[in-house]
């Protein structure tokens, strides 16, 4: 043993030296990430791209509106699909209107109104396959705006830059795990790249306007377009249809979600309830009527002469916990009262045609009720074809937008409701 110790003694020294050297050992840790520099285009140039294009694949569909033989479906933040529905059993994805930032739409006669981030774009859809942008109302939805600096008055499209893309390059920096080196995404001035959150919709209407889904945030009533977002209800005079004129804005409630026009009245759905307004007497500044508050939740609403039908769901965006259909007596709009509640799975959009009530119940599909007796709805049929989101039912045809596309059902014979097409 002693011999071994003596023999390896020089090696102890070697190891000791190594140990001392260990203080010189440094780890080299680097982080490589992307720097993204926005590519800008002048807004006036950018607007030239807002027009009809060849049909595009539907992927993140949102709001839906029907006008004549055409169905218009919003592709979230990208534009609007135009579906030729001359033959509902064979609908054709006919064209796509490029509208960056679009969430909502509303139609009257040959005019389509759509939001494009903070702007309101008016299209002539005399030929729906060749929609032509006729007017841009700048920054009328400032809470959705990304082009304009907050509170700025300058909305001159020739002096405003819009991000149209990004150049990406890798960069490498020293990094210490647990440190605070985070990716830098904007190398250039992007002060007006405010984030927007919500998802909006389109609407039902009167007169010659198209028919929109219950998730709509746009509504046309007589010569006025109403738009809700977050807490505001805004009115636009559209008597000159291609040149909407912003009129008024006022606060409804926080988390406003949908608006539904019916016989001169506006039903505004919020996280907390349904607020009713009379738009007949003073269309630019609707008069508040009653309100029906409920448990917190997302709540599209439709109405008829006597009742409002409200779905409440527990989407995380609405911070709710309930999933139900509520029927509210609105015979006296100043004193609405709950008539009945029905538990559902995750109800979203709905539609009413005569005594038939159509409710999109997400993965449970489309549920069709006989609503003759609101105290005791009778389920006539449940169509479990897709994850139902919103529906427009009229003239024996239920047009339903689902997570995976567009479904159409023939309900002209309520004893034989059947799927006639899926796009």
């Amino acid at each position, binding site marked *: 043993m002693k011999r071994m110790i003596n023999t390896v003694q020089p090696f102890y020294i070697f190891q000791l030296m*190594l140990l001392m050297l260990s203080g010189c050992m440094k780890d080299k840790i680097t*982080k490589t990430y992307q720097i993204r520099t926005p590519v800008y285009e002048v807004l006036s140039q950018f607007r030239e791209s807002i027009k009809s294009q060849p049909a595009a694949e539907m992927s993140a569909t949102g709001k839906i509106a029907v006008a004549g033989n055409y169905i218009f479906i919003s592709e979230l933040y990208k534009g609007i699909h135009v579906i030729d529905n001359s033959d509902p059993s064979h609908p054709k994805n006919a064209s796509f209107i490029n509208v960056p*930032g679009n969430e909502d739409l509303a139609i009257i006669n040959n005019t389509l109104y759509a939001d494009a981030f903070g702007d309101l774009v008016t299209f002539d859809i005399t030929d729906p396959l060749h929609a032509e942008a006729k007017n841009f109302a700048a920054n009328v939805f400032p809470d959705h705006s990304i082009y304009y600096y907050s509170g700025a008055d300058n909305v001159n499209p020739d002096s405003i830059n819009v*991000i*149209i*893309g990004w150049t990406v390059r890798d960069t490498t920096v020293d990094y210490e795990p647990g440190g605070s080196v985070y990716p830098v995404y904007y190398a250039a001035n992007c002060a007006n790249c405010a984030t927007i959150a919500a998802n909006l919709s389109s609407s039902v209407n009167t007169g010659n306007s198209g028919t929109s889904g219950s998730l709509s945030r746009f509504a046309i009533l007589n010569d006025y377009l109403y738009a809700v977002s977050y807490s505001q209800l805004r009115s636009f005079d559209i008597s000159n249809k291609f040149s909407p004129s912003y009129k008024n804005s006022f606060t409804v409630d926080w988390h406003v979600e949908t608006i539904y026009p019916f016989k001169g009245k506006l039903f505004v759905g919020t996280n907390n309830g349904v607020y009713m307004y009379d738009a007949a007497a003073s269309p630019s500044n609707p008069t508040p009527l009653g309100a029906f508050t409920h448990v917190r939740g997302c709540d599209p609403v439709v109405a008829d002469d006597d009742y409002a039908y409200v779905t409440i769901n527990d989407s995380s965006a609405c911070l709710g916990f309930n999933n139900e259909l509520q029927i509210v007596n609105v015979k006296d709009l100043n004193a609405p009262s709950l008539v009945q509640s029905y538990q559902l799975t995750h109800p979203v959009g709905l539609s009413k045609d005569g005594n038939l009530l159509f409710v999109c119940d997400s993965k449970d599909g489309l549920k069709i009720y006989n609503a003759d007796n609101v105290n005791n709805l009778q389920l006539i049929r449940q169509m479990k074809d897709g994850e139902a989101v919103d529906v427009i039912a009229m003239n024996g045809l239920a047009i339903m937008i689902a997570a995976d596309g567009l479904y159409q059902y023939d309900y002209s014979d309520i004893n034989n409701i059947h799927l006639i097409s899926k796009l």
Partner: protein
Amino acid sequence: MYRRNFIIIAVMIFAAFSCFGQQKISMCHFQFHSINNVGLLEGQAGSAFHLQTINGVQYKSWFTGAGVGLDSYRYRTIPLFLDIRKEFGKTPNKILLFGDAGINFYWARDRDVKQFYSNDKIKNGFYGELGAGYKFRLNAKMSIIFSGSYSYKTLEETGGDYYYNMPFFLPGAAAYSPVAERIHYNLNRVLLKVGVEF
């Protein structure tokens, strides 16, 4: 590259075991040896435990074999490597120089998993070692080896869950989301080992 290393290592292991089975046949000049080390890694991040076993064949003063280990410096890894060593000296006790090269397989610890974002991934990296040692012969079949070396390992972490920072609705943004980032770990350590060879 990794595939080529694997093939080399597989051939070496095959050769080692072939000769192990033929040790008593005089025509075979190769001898099977197994070297089993425990060690201490010292580096910028502190000390860490190290364990390895190397099995291979000796031909005169040269030895080559395949090794596998456990390396817990910063991130736990399993190095799988090829070892080559040369002995010097005419006495039964030998000075030796050796080098290892191979692949470092990441083996997540609970604390590492918690630290990473859900879409983070750790890629396997390189493992290398260069060192010197002293082999003290206890008897005809067994020796003790003291060694010191420079040890190097790399890892690459990819991912990063910064998707929510990206204004995804802006034109052109979707094509780049989710955001990718890469963290390269080049870890330099001193490794002191003691082992048994038989």
